[in-house]
């Protein structure tokens, strides 16, 4: 078995028992990245030197007989909206041209403290606004399962990095499904933690009340280990939850007999016939293991997409005001006045989807419209939370497909934003309610992976990961990835 096929946990074990060095591992993933990136375009920059320096540090520790912690020495890829000190951070936007943050995101501090070699920064939809990684100013990213298809988005680059074995782990961010949807499209595990579980400090904001950083991995267990690394209260983020630390790997093997799972008909009934059949097979398989599935009603979910496209753009329109050409990033040099400089810099710097959302957001916040849109949307958001809350009094988890369809063709939806928005219909309600959600691969349909999404109550990631881990074993999505290595 190649290094590339090993799970992060197995890699870490092999570093600890000296079967493999962190340098060997890092070099193997870097080689795969160099080999495949020209076609896939999952990485915007590859930080080979820094990654090898970190790996060497780990190997020196091993040589000196020092004990390694957790995932120490295991490489990782980082979405390009998470700040790493002195490296360009673009959010796949021209407006951040030349910007190098003089600070690390809190998650990066943690990853650096653990000596995890960083392979590079991954491509994404511009400012995380998109579901296909096609809105990136630096080219599309291709799905390794079928390079004519999109990888999903907005964390497309991070999903592809893990899927195509360029990195055993990666970090993405999820505002309306930006981790779970590409994880599903690329056949990997993607976890969006509870809002406030992971510090947002250093994550360039799209919609502050919805954004959350989370892991991509080959296995549920790996995501649990990576969540252990990145979670925790942060004084620099007022919205981060101040709760006791826990070990998310502790309960992964707990039995799940008699588990009650709710399937919201609002989400499930929208599926087309043959895709629905694929999910019926999965449900049947899991039912055979003593899991009880019941169809439930979450009526407010019908409004989740509409309200999301009020709240997220509203926050974005304000969060993106700081890109004005004054202090950093792109500035139009020809402008003759202040207003012209700001207008031209922003017009040139932002892409079409970002502009569309700034316009929507500015509109719904403007006086006279605020009550009808923004305020109403916040009220609906409360109803969505209440619907989920009620469901969790009876059910352990909520089950649904992660996406209504497998990965679509490049260009297929880019001219129709509403159709594009619909690809997040399953994942958006979870962000609106601040809940943890995970996508795990469930089957292959026409050569493309499908995923299931599991959602649990706030701050119950431990239970969610336990259920996902058992489901993963039962589903046994075992794909020979040698094809990805040998292309």
């Amino acid at each position, binding site marked *: 078995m190649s290094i590339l096929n090993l799970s992060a946990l197995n890699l870490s074990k092999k570093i600890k028992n000296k079967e493999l060095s962190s340098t060997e591992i890092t070099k193997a993933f870097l080689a795969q990245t160099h080999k495949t990136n020209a076609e896939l375009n999952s990485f915007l920059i590859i930080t080979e030197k820094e990654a090898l320096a970190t790996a060497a540090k780990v190997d020196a520790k091993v040589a000196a007989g020092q004990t390694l912690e957790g995932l120490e020495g295991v490489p990782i890829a980082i979405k390009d*909206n*998470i*700040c790493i000190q002195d490296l360009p*951070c673009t*959010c796949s936007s021209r407006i*951040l041209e030349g*910007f190098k*943050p*003089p*600070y690390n*995101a809190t998650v990066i501090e943690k990853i650096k403290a653990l000596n995890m070699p960083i392979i590079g920064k991954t491509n994404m939809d511009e400012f995380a606004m998109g579901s296909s990684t096609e809105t990136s100013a630096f080219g599309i990213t291709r799905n390794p399962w079928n390079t004519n298809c999109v990888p999903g988005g907005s964390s497309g680059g991070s999903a592809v990095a893990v899927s195509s074995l360029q990195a055993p782990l990666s970090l993405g961010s999820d505002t309306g499904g930006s981790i779970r949807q590409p994880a599903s499209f690329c056949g990997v595990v993607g976890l969006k933690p509870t809002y406030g579980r992971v510090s*947002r*400090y*250093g*994550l*360039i*904001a799209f*919609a*502050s*009340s919805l954004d959350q950083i989370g892991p991509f991995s080959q296995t549920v267990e790996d995501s649990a280990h990576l969540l252990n690394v990145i979670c925790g209260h942060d*004084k*620099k*983020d*007022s*919205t981060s939850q101040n709760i006791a630390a826990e070990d998310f790997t502790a309960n992964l093997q707990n039995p799940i007999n008699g588990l009650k799972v709710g399937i919201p008909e609002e989400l499930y009934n929208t599926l087309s016939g043959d895709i629905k059949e694929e999910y019926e097979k999965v449900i049947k398989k899991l039912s055979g293991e003593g899991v009880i599935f019941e169809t439930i009603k979450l009526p407010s979910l019908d409004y989740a997409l509409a309200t999301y496209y009020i709240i997220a753009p*509203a*926050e974005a*329109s*304000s969060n*993106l*005001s*700081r*890109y*004005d050409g*004054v*202090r*950093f990033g792109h500035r139009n040099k020809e402008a003759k*006045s*202040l207003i012209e400089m*700001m207008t031209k810099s922003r017009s040139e710097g932002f892409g079409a989807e970002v502009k569309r959302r700034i316009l929507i957001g*500015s509109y719904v*916040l*403007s*006086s006279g419209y*605020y009550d009808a849109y*923004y305020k109403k949307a916040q009220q609906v958001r409360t109803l969505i939370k209440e619907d989920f809350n009620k469901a969790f009094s009876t059910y352990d988890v909520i089950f649904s497909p992660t996406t209504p369809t497998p990965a679509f063709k490049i260009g297929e939806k880019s001219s129709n934003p509403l159709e594009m928005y619909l690809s997040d219909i399953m994942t958006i309600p979870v962000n609106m309610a601040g809940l943890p959600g995970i996508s795990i691969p469930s089957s292959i349909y026409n050569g493309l992976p499908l995923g299931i999404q599991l959602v649990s109550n706030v701050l119950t990631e431990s239970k969610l990961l336990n259920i996902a881990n058992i489901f993963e074993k039962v589903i046994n999505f075992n794909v020979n990835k040698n094809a990805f290595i040998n292309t």
Partner: protein
Amino acid sequence: MTSWEAVIGLEIHAQLTTNTKTFCNCSAEFGATANTHICPVCTGMPGVLPVLNKNVVEYAIKLGLATNCSISGHNEFARKNYFYPDLPKGYQISQFDKPICLKGHMDVVVEGKESKIGITRIHMEEDAGKLVHQGSDNIKGATHSFVDLNRSSVPLLEIVSEPDIRNAKEAVAYMEKVKQILQYLEICDGNMEEGSMRCDANVSIRKKGETSLGTKAEVKNLNSFKSVEKAINLEIERQIDILEEGGTIIQETRHYNEATNSTKSLRSKEEAHDYRYFPDPDLVPIVISSEWVEEVRKSLPELPEARRNRYMADYALNEYDALYITSEKSLADFFENTLKFINKPKDIVNWLMSDVAAYIKSKQLSVNATKLTPELLAGMISLLSAGSISGKIAKDVILEIFETGKNAQQIVSEKGLAQVSDEGAIKQAIEQVLQENHESVESIKNGKVQAIGFLVGQVMKKTGGKANPGLANKLLKELLGIS
């Protein structure tokens, strides 16, 4: 003219004297080299987040309690969105529909008449940075414009009054009262020149006896008490002229120019900004418990009224003097600190109201910014009351203290200013004076006894002001043989 009544409301911005800024750990100190008190948070870098400084909340509670406001238990911060190069995030974090203090009031006295000015609200917000232009005093026409972000995110309280003010004098009295309370609470230095207190005035007029409000204009850029008074009077006159000529007032924002004492329109209501306020999702609501409010209430210092009453009761000061001394906290503190060295309240007050007041006014300083300390003032008063120096010499000594910071005793001995009470020396001087002033001596002998005052004056002059005047008077009379 007299048939009109003005209706005025003030919005005052007070910059708080917390050590650090509102949402980061940078120093909030005024006057540092440009862009040295900055960090990723107050320069609006991507990905960073604000964390609220608890002292800002505490200062706001203090001011709310001192102005009889109710304190909101549930507080939210909102974003006020607009573009300007001194506003790094493209929005200012402020409070909108849930301010921390509501419905307070203050009593102000103008020409003996007391009136109650309502306070609509007080809210917390962060300041913007500062632009410096080259080639013009405005961004339009400047060849270069620089931004200094030291002030970015320094905490402010905005104090919004009810439209209860009726004339410019009352507006100034209200502002002075606000400044006084801010200083007593030690939450703002009240320095209008440095911009730590700023004011906008909303002005409208109506016929006397009417209860509905006229259309208002907002006058901005009032950077001194004098500006407030002049600009309001100017605006009232402008509005009266328009209405008397049959015109209508347009709701607008006007900019006051201190140099030309005139206002000009900045923007009309139609051109007003839409700030697209919404709750800041980066900050959680602040819950203020009644226990916290009570804790702050207990920590409140003695406020001006209470001090004034105490001075009248404990030190037998009259109301005028007590009002004067308590008008500024620094002055009242100086008074009390001087008392610790010498228990002569009336003497201290007299010096503070005369020579000290004149000096600090001429130098435009605060009482504690000179070389005169309470201990030095006490030392000087003590020499004077012991008869060691004369009142005239004392006036010179205090000037010398202001210049050098030396103590009075040292100045007196160095310059030989001690009062002369040696009879022989004074007699010698008297004899000379009598020889030089035959006419005066004659007229005294002829019954014009009041001319003796002139002769005492001459003796004082001869001795360089050092002769004990009482003794000089007594000896003169003896020598002239009058009783």
